């Protein structure tokens, strides 16, 4: 494929900002479409704007699953220009264009719906506020609207769901988020101390602490031009897999709870606790806060903890196998999971789904395999996929991923013992290379996490971009509940378990 772009690798660099080619928009448009139309294996990991030399520069990063490369290219937006929307051809770009439109006032023509992503008002036209917000409507005497949220019955985050129903059947679901917007990306730039940035990364999404901090730490390391030692890399991978196991087991519990299967819920909740308690034993925090830091670690794994981890995962693995065998052989429960909330592989591809949501619909996207980071280059990771894309597939996906994660941790613990080097303390004061950028991808339990940062002439971070997998995957939920019963919505929602604050940033 010919084109002008910079070819970079995950977690490498730093690269010079000037090396990102600037294309005229028509070339940018054609190149984006050619890339993603010709090959399924290419998907967009980030599309965002930066203010560079007093101009708005829009950067597009595409990940190629076949060769582990990331392609970067950009265009410069001149005020009041109206651009042809890529979304018309590639629906997966819809949210990216909306975000850029919202943040930089870039005008697109032909975008199906340029509504706000995170703000309760349109920043270009402040008359448009959430009170008179034009939710999607279908007129009909027999139809009724059900609005859920932003305040929910459970102890969860805020988000508004607007259903258009015919009796119990859902015709359309519109999801309006943004209530949790905290301006994390700006805070990343404003915060002076590197430690503050780490803590911010930990708070992007409360259940993906390790995933986001690994992405952040490896981004800082590649901008500084340092590389983590093997032992440190192994420990990070172990932490990430522990997080994956804990969340998958916890979500299995929640799925059982939603269909009132008490046994499955009680057992899985107990199992999840034993996993997160092991993380607590390791670093003092059940979610792994404080564990991952750039350049080193405050909590190097010791032989005793490693033994505990190994015992815990074999025990938990066995028990989880037992209970899932029961869960997936219970007819009353299978009747609830099967053929509910189906998202086809084609829909998943068009929505740009990532991570376990994509894999359970038969789209094999796994950054650990395609763009390996940390120690995943050297361990054998099997990509688990399911074909059907219903709630059952996503439940089975979790079960199989737990099994695979346990296998990965066992491999990692063996090589960990073979690498007895010392792990240094975290290095917060490393100078970052000026006028550079780097991109870092990691595979959190939910899917692909992308952090990208740009440094200014004095080596300070001037722009920071975060993309949580939820950003793409919320659309999957909206697609999943179409033509389903409204009473199955909580089940579909839980089967994805997407992050509100990861989307809202």
């Amino acid at each position: 494929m010919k084109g002008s772009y910079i070819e970079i690798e995950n977690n490498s660099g730093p690269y010079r900002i000037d090396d990102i080619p600037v294309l005229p928009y028509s070339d940018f448009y054609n190149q984006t479409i050619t890339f993603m139309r010709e090959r399924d294996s290419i998907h967009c990991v980030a599309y965002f704007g930066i203010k560079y030399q007093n101009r708005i520069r829009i950067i597009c990063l595409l990940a190629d699953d076949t060769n582990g490369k990331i392609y970067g290219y950009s265009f410069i937006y001149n005020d009041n220009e109206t651009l042809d929307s890529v979304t018309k051809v590639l629906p997966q770009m819809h949210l990216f264009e909306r975000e850029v439109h919202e943040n930089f006032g870039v005008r697109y023509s032909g975008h199906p719906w340029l509504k706000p992503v995170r703000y309760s008002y349109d920043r270009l036209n402040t008359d448009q506020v959430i009170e008179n917000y034009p939710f999607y409507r279908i007129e009909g005497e027999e139809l009724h609207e059900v609005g859920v949220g932003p305040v929910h019955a459970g102890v969860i985050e805020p988000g508004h769901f607007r259903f258009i129903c015919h009796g119990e059947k859902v015709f359309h679901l519109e999801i309006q988020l943004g209530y949790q917007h905290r301006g994390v990306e700006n805070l990343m730039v404003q915060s002076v101390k590197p430690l503050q940035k780490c803590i911010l990364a930990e708070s992007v999404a409360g259940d993906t602490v390790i995933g986001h901090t690994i992405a952040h730490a490896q981004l800082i390391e590649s901008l500084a031009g340092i590389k983590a030692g093997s032992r440190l890399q192994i420990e990070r991978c172990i932490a990430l897999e522990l997080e994956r196991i804990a969340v998958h087991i916890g979500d299995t519990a929640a799925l059982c709870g939603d269909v009132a299967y008490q046994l499955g819920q009680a057992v899985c909740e107990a199992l999840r606790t034993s996993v997160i308690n092991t993380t607590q034993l390791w670093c003092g925090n059940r979610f792994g806060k404080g564990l991952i830091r750039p350049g080193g670690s405050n909590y190097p794994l010791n032989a005793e903890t490693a033994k505990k981890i190994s015992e815990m995962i074999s025990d938990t693995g066995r028990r989880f196998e037992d209970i899932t065998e029961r869960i997936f052989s219970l007819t009353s429960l299978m009747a609830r999971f099967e053929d509910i909330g189906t998202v086809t592989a084609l829909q998943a591809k068009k929505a740009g789904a990532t991570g376990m949501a994509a894999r359970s619909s038969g789209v094999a996207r796994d950054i650990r395999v395609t763009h390996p980071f940390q120690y995943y280059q050297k361990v054998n990771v099997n990509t688990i996929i399911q074909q059907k894309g219903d709630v059952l597939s996503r439940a089975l996906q979790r079960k199989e991923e737990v099994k695979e994660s346990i296998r990965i941790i066992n491999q990692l613990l063996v090589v960990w013992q073979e690498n007895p080097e010392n792990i240094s303390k975290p290095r917060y004061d490393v100078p970052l290379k000026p006028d550079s950028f780097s991109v870092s991808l990691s595979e959190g339990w939910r899917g692909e996490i992308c952090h990208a940062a740009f440094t200014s002439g004095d080596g300070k971070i001037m722009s920071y971009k975060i993309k949580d997998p939820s950003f793409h995957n919320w659309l999957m939920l909206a697609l999943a509940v179409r033509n389903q019963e409204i009473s199955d919505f909580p089940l579909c929602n839980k089967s994805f378990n997407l992050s509100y604050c990861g989307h809202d940033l």
Partner: protein
Amino acid sequence: MRLLGFLFLIVSALLIPGFILRIKSIAAGRKGPGIWQPYRDIAILFAKGQVFSNTTGLIFQIAPAINLSCIIAAAMLLPFGRYGSLISFDGDFVYFLYILALGRFFSIISALDTGSSFEGMGASREALFSMLAEPAFFILFAALAIVTGHTSFSGIFSEYTISGDHNILIMTLIGVFVLFQSSLVETCRVPVDDPKTHLELTMIHEVMILDNSGFDKALIHIATYLKQAMYGLLIYNLITPFKLNLVFQIIIFVLVQALYAITAGLIESFRARNKMNRNPKFILTISAVAWIAFVIILILKK
């Protein structure tokens, strides 16, 4: 003595919900709340003030009280073994069903009164499911009325006794099944509804009372507990030979109520609830089974 039966009913209504909770927590391996927890909750609710939404009117405020009084009125019709009921007249089982329906009617319109889309959905589900559950009860008691030649609860149960006759045994088994399954529908338990869920979109009964608070909410809970105990009492009446003396009757009554609670608790622990659109099928099956009892009786009488 008639009052005694009614008192037993009230006492068992006090104990069953806590008992079910205990069974569920034991089955889940949890410590769980004590057997009196539901009553602590109700005591707290009684002590609380009430909040009424601006969209609600008079109906919303009176409905919980009407619902509870309807259920108490229905409870007074139920006999305790050979001791008759407080009130009894020919055809009172029809009255029983419709006085319960009157209470339900008020809870449904009170849910609609709030104007919330959730409560509207809950009300429509409740109306549909209770309508489907009605024939089962009628068919069963019509069959019993043919067997015994009486049309009041007191008459039916003073005449109906388990004996060696295998037709009567089958009839009794079917009766217990129908009453138990109907009680799951009427008192909103798994697999039809889930009393524990916090998900408004999946609830049936619970979603209708989202707007109720304080005193009214306590009344609604008490009404549900009473209803549960009434079904236990009906099952007890069906299977007890009325010639037993009082001590044995009480022992059997306690056993039946305990078994009822244990079964309900175990069902809730070890199975998932139905998909909403499976519920009509589930409920109609109860009527179909009741119909078998009716046919058996028709054959017997020939």
